[in-house]
């Protein structure tokens, strides 16, 4: 299978604490991969390493945009450079721009695909105006796909919770990623909203051809969505495989439920 993301032996130390210990992971083209594990297992740290928020202590992060080219290393790049390369993420605790409108939030996602500088912004030449107009149209198109178009001019902070989560996805999609990293997209959602999210994520993969790596605690969603699952615990990868394999893996059951004792 063609791989768009390949992570090899990724380790991250915070002082004496080893948050990640030689974790391997790969995401294939058009694949939905889930990363699960108990609280504090290092899932979000893993995301932060990939997206450049922390420089990893050891290991390699390799990307290949269409899955065909020779993989390129992206460790140590700044977060904005990583996004420019085509990895976009959402956050576990929603991080929207609360005092900007919904449309502007999405347009921020377009930022790294636009070129206008200070002079362009002041003079408003033809190319700047064209770019600006295109950004508005494209952003609106994304909002329509995600189903947020009724909220275009609302402030992001005034959106209902589920819509805020979806807006994060819309904003990430505006950066034209080949891989979308979703950090607990269903956290705090009711079963209805989770169901909608399930459909949305599948649609993004099928219609946009974007591969997806997600962290999630909602097992029903994980099992229904993912092609493959990676399980981490105490910073180490303890299992990988299809949902079926993971469901029956003794190591995973132990990590989640604890060991049976003969007492």
């Amino acid at each position: 299978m063609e791989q768009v993301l390949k992570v090899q032996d990724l380790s991250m130390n915070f002082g004496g604490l080893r948050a990640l210990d030689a974790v391997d992971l790969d995401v294939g083209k058009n694949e939905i991969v889930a990363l699960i594990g108990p609280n504090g297992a290092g899932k979000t740290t893993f995301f932060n390493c990939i997206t450049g928020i922390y420089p990893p202590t050891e290991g390699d992060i390799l990307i290949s945009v269409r899955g065909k080219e020779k993989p390129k290393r992206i460790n140590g790049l700044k977060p904005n450079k990583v996004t420019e390369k085509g990895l976009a993420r959402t956050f576990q605790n929603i991080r929207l721009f609360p005092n900007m409108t919904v449309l502007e939030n999405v347009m921020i996602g377009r930022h790294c695909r636009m070129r206008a500088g200070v002079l362009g912004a002041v003079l408003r030449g033809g190319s700047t105006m064209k770019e600006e107009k295109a950004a508005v149209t494209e952003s609106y198109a994304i909002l329509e796909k995600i189903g947020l178009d009724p909220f275009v001019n609302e402030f992001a902070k005034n959106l209902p919770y589920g819509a805020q989560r979806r807006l994060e996805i819309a904003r990430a999609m505006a950066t034209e990623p080949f891989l979308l990293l979703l950090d607990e997209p269903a956290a705090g959602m009711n079963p209805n909203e989770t169901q909608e999210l399930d459909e949305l994520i599948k649609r993004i993969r099928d219609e946009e051809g974007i591969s997806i790596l997600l962290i999630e605690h909602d097992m029903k969603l994980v099992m229904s969505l993912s092609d493959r699952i990676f399980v981490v615990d105490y910073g180490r990868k303890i299992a990988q495989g299809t949902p079926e394999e993971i469901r029956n893996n003794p190591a995973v059951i132990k990590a989640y439920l604890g060991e049976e004792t003969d007492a």
Partner: protein
Amino acid sequence: MITFDQIKKAVVVSVWFMFLTFPIMVIRVNPVEHIVEWRWKNMLLIGVGSFLLSFVWHYFIRRKELGTRKAEAGEEGEAIPLAQRILKNKAIYRPTLVALGIFALIFPFIFSLYQTNILISALIYIMLGLGLNIVVGLAGLLDLGYVAFYAVGAYAYALLNYHFGLSFWMILPIGACLGAIFGILLGFPVLRLRGDYLAIVTLGFGEIIRIILENWNEFSFGPSGIANIPRPSLFGIDLSVHDATIYIYYIMIGLCLLTIFVVNRLQDSRIGRAWIALREDEIACQAMGIDKAKTKLTAFALGATWAGMSGVVFAAKTTFVNPASFTIWESIIILCIVVLGGMGSIIGVIAGALVLILMPEYLRAFSEFRMLAFGVLLVVMMVFRPGGLIPNVRRTYKFEGVANAEES
């Protein structure tokens, strides 16, 4: 509708105020005749005054809370402030703008030189406020040393003119560039800082510039400053004091219009949005592909540019510069203009500058109470209108069908 509870509260307030002001308002020691005067009448006045004011205060607080509750319940129809309604309505907005424009144009011919001078300083502060508005209001970087760039501009004119005889018009762009360069110079070390830490470092930067100017005698002539800076000349013709003032007035009107034009275009552009995103959430902003360092530096540089320019005009207007004009107090006033007017709002900043600069000038009779009024104004504003006089409104778009974007 006044309940017993409210009366009780008001009584407590008035007693408390009488107690607080007792030492300064009631007792007066006359050291010559060695007697103590007891001015009980003052105490009575304060008691009655604070009793009544407490009702007014509570009335406004209640009205405000009612407003927020309404807004939360989604009834926003009435919540749009008057200022914004005027701005939205083109039938009122356009004629008002034209009238204001004509008034501004003929101002120096109907009013005295004194009035024109006051308005020039208000215009200088408008420009400073709009510049700082980029840094504080849009990019959310609390800069307490903004006056340093103002000083850079003023000294650029004074020194370059003194040593090389360069004229006002040559130095205006140089001052702007120097402002931008110093903005970047300040920007580099503070790239990693935010919030309180940033405020402290910028405060230090402002003081460093002032102290250098004060102590480096060979360079800046120390506290005695530089005098006899020429006023701008009109195509090489030297103007009289009266004409030059009017000329500077028009230059300032032009520069302010330029600032408004540029800032307005910037804030709805790719760069402006990046600034606001940076203010709202730094981590998310980076994760969305915005170069944090570059965005911060452009904010500092573009903010400082306007301070550099207004510094040049300031030097030309007063014909004298010394470090005493560039104290931390100036930074605070400019910051107050931005906060009071409404962070990120151009019209708000203009209103803020006019209120804060013109009010003390026209209330000279009460100049002893200037600081008191200033403090009270700030407290009242922050309680009742935390968003500023005229808060910023974000641009909205209208969509018909899928791909027809129209600005509204």
